[in-house]
């Protein structure tokens, strides 16, 4: 046999070695040599470990982060909270400011004021005043041919000294446009005796009530009608708990108004997101389990393959504890290395999936690192110690004889 050492150590030394604790540098050397000498096998075991850690990291990272991504995606459905003045009154003048302060950047709040005006031929039409810049962010589904310029052109003082405002540009719902301004011509509306000249800037199509309304910039609307906003539509961002907290805070901050969750939006989102999350969780579980089983089978094969080393060490007098410790240390080192490399790759994979699908990066979750490392080490330990406990019962001589 090729492993017979040229010099047999003194018996006394063997005895003393047995009683002494294993030398750390020797253990390290054995670990290193095992990895270097059996590069191929060690590499394939490490590869399996890396694949498993990558899969686990990527899936867990996605699972945590994708919900936030989907939530911001679902905010395209528009307002999920509505603040309405009680009993058809107007909201107080600082209601919008209060709402924005309560949101503190965690959503968009858009005021709406409504009035019924009359055209020259006596037809009623709903006129709404709002903040066009904010509406564009809130109601992304509005199909608008051209947004009115929110111009700050100073009032033109003519020779008479009376300020003459330039004609106000309005956004006209497609049904209102067909009835009132079919040729895109300017028109006049009156509200309680006060008239206003309007030029259509573009048409608006939503398929809902907005189609039969005329939208004006809020300041022009207020100057003309004297009506304050009666509704604030809010798209609050965050998880259902955060949205509920926002609703509670708004209710407290605006006691004079009704704060209502838009159930249609909230429940639809919860449902779709819940199903997506459950599918994702199943997928994550299945993938991680497969990867773990793959590691298990590769590592078991690796350890079985080294039964010769095991037998030699045992024949040379290594204690059971030392052997267990050696293989455990080896497995733990492998698991930790694999986990670290896999974590780095997994974060990259998650980021790539986030970029490819959501056009936004998935932030690496370093809080997952301890879990991934621990999981990898546990799987590695199980797959190392399982075959050891089987081999322990076998006489070294049998293995060395190649049986």
């Amino acid at each position: 046999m090729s492993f017979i050492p040229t010099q047999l150590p003194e018996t006394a030394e063997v005895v003393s070695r047995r009683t002494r604790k294993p030398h750390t540098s020797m253990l390290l050397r054995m670990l290193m040599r095992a990895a270097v000498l059996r590069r191929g096998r060690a590499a394939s075991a490490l590869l399996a470990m890396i694949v498993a850690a990558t899969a686990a990291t990527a899936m867990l990272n996605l699972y945590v982060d994708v919900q936030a991504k989907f939530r911001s995606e679902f905010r395209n459905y528009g307002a999920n909270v509505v603040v309405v003045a009680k009993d058809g009154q107007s909201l107080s003048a600082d209601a919008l400011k209060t709402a924005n302060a309560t949101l503190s950047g965690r959503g968009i709040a858009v005021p709406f004021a409504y009035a019924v005006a009359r055209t020259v031929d006596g037809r009623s039409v709903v006129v709404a005043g709002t903040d066009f810049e904010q509406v564009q962010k809130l109601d992304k589904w509005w199909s608008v041919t051209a947004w009115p310029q929110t111009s700050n052109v100073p009032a033109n003082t003519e020779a008479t000294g009376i300020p003459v405002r330039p004609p106000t540009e309005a956004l006209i719902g497609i049904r209102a446009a067909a009835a009132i301004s079919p040729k895109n011509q300017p028109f006049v509306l009156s509200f309680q005796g006060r008239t206003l000249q309007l030029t259509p800037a573009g048409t608006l199509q939503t398929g809902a009530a907005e189609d039969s309304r005329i939208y004006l910039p809020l300041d022009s609307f207020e100057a003309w009608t004297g009506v304050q906003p009666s509704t604030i539509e809010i798209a609050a961002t965050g998880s259902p708990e955060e949205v509920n907290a926002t609703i509670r805070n708004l209710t407290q901050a605006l006691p004079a108004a009704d704060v209502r969750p838009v159930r249609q939006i909230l429940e639809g989102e919860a449902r779709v997101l819940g199903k997506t999350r459950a599918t994702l969780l199943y997928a994550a579980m299945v993938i991680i389990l497969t990867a773990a089983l793959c590691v298990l089978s590769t590592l078991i094969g690796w350890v079985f393959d080294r039964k010769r080393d095991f037998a030699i060490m045992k024949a040379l007098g290594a204690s059971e504890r030392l052997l267990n410790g050696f293989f455990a240390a080896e497995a733990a080192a492998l698991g930790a290395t694999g986990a670290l490399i896999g974590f780095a790759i997994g974060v990259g994979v998650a980021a790539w999936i986030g970029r490819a699908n959501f056009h936004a990066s998935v932030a690496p979750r370093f809080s997952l690192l301890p879990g991934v490392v621990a999981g990898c080490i546990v799987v590695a330990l199980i797959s190392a110690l399982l075959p050891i406990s089987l081999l322990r019962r076998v006489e070294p001589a049998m293995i060395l004889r190649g049986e």
Partner: protein
Amino acid sequence: MFVRLVYQSFRRQKRRKLLAGVAIMLGVGVATAMIAVATDIGDKISRELRSYGANLVVTPQEDSLEVQIGGVDLRPPSDGTYLNESDLPKIKGMFWRHNIVGFSPMLPVPVQVESQKTTLLGTYFHRPLRFGKEDFVTGVRLTHSWWKVEGGWPADDSQDVLLGTRLAARLQQHPGDQVEIRGQGYRIAGILSTGSVEDDQVVAPLAVAQRILDKPGAVRRIYVSALTKPEDALAKRDPKSMNPALFDRWYCSPYVQSIAYQLQEAIPHSHAEQIRQVAQNEGTALSRIKGLMLLITLAALFTSALAVSAAMATAIFERRTEVGLMRALGAGNASVAALFFTEATLLALLGGVAGFVGGALLAQQIGRSVFGSSITIEPVLIPVILAIAVIVTCGGSAAAIRRAVKFDPVYALRGEA
């Protein structure tokens, strides 16, 4: 001899073959389940997205301008035109009828309930209808899934009504009480909560609203909930500008636009329009979820391919002695490789079939527990999955086989790695 070699190899090395087979089975199972889920998730999620409510609305073609603030129509009821209730079942006769999840007619009537001015909304709750030989059920319980009722839903042929939760609180009414509308008493079947304008209204069966308005068969608008395909360049084109072939393709695709077009054909003097808030966002949400599942499926396929390759490499590595013996007895590289590849293919086919069955069961389990419905598995998947299994198994074995064949038989037989 070759067949015998293969046969004996399987017979004598049951444990190793089993291990490799299990690895292949797991890999194929995961791949099958993920592919099945990914191909079906579009369908499943678009059904879930229907919980956002109707994505199409049908109104009379020559309607007067709506004067609606906060869900209350300020038009006098004599104003404007109506659709005909008897035309409703025709919706189930159009080309894309199977994509119609449900529809709800609406007829708002301004009423006074105990000195409170409000709207009575006539609609279908869960009404059985018949078109031709087909029976179906439709109404708000299908199209407005966020409507919650405390108490019971009224029957569509009853005189019972639902009271909006805020209105009920103001009137201090409870399920089972009577409410008087235009001199007639109606039983309150339940209290309705929608988080929207209906919370201040009365919701009644359509026939009740028509009688109060004294317009039998009248419907103001119809909300239609349809399964649609995300719109693309073709969907947005004007059907009038298309040539006949293109028009057929457009007409036979379940775009929200073409379904609107068909609704207009089905219901005379009507105008159908997509509700953009719902219809436009559906497409993006759907494509995001589908995209995510596709990428994850690719990752799963990659992982299981690596797992199978690793298992095969291990299995072959363990058989160096055998290779050495064969080569020592004069077997050529080609015949040794042929033996291993045959074994790998056989293993891939056996493990692949078992994995396919397991993966299909897993997909069913996921479908049932997540979506409450089974996931359809295309039969065309079987050959595709088996082909992938064979390619991955042989590919994973190739490097190991090459190394095993190159290894000097002398060392292999002496047991030196």
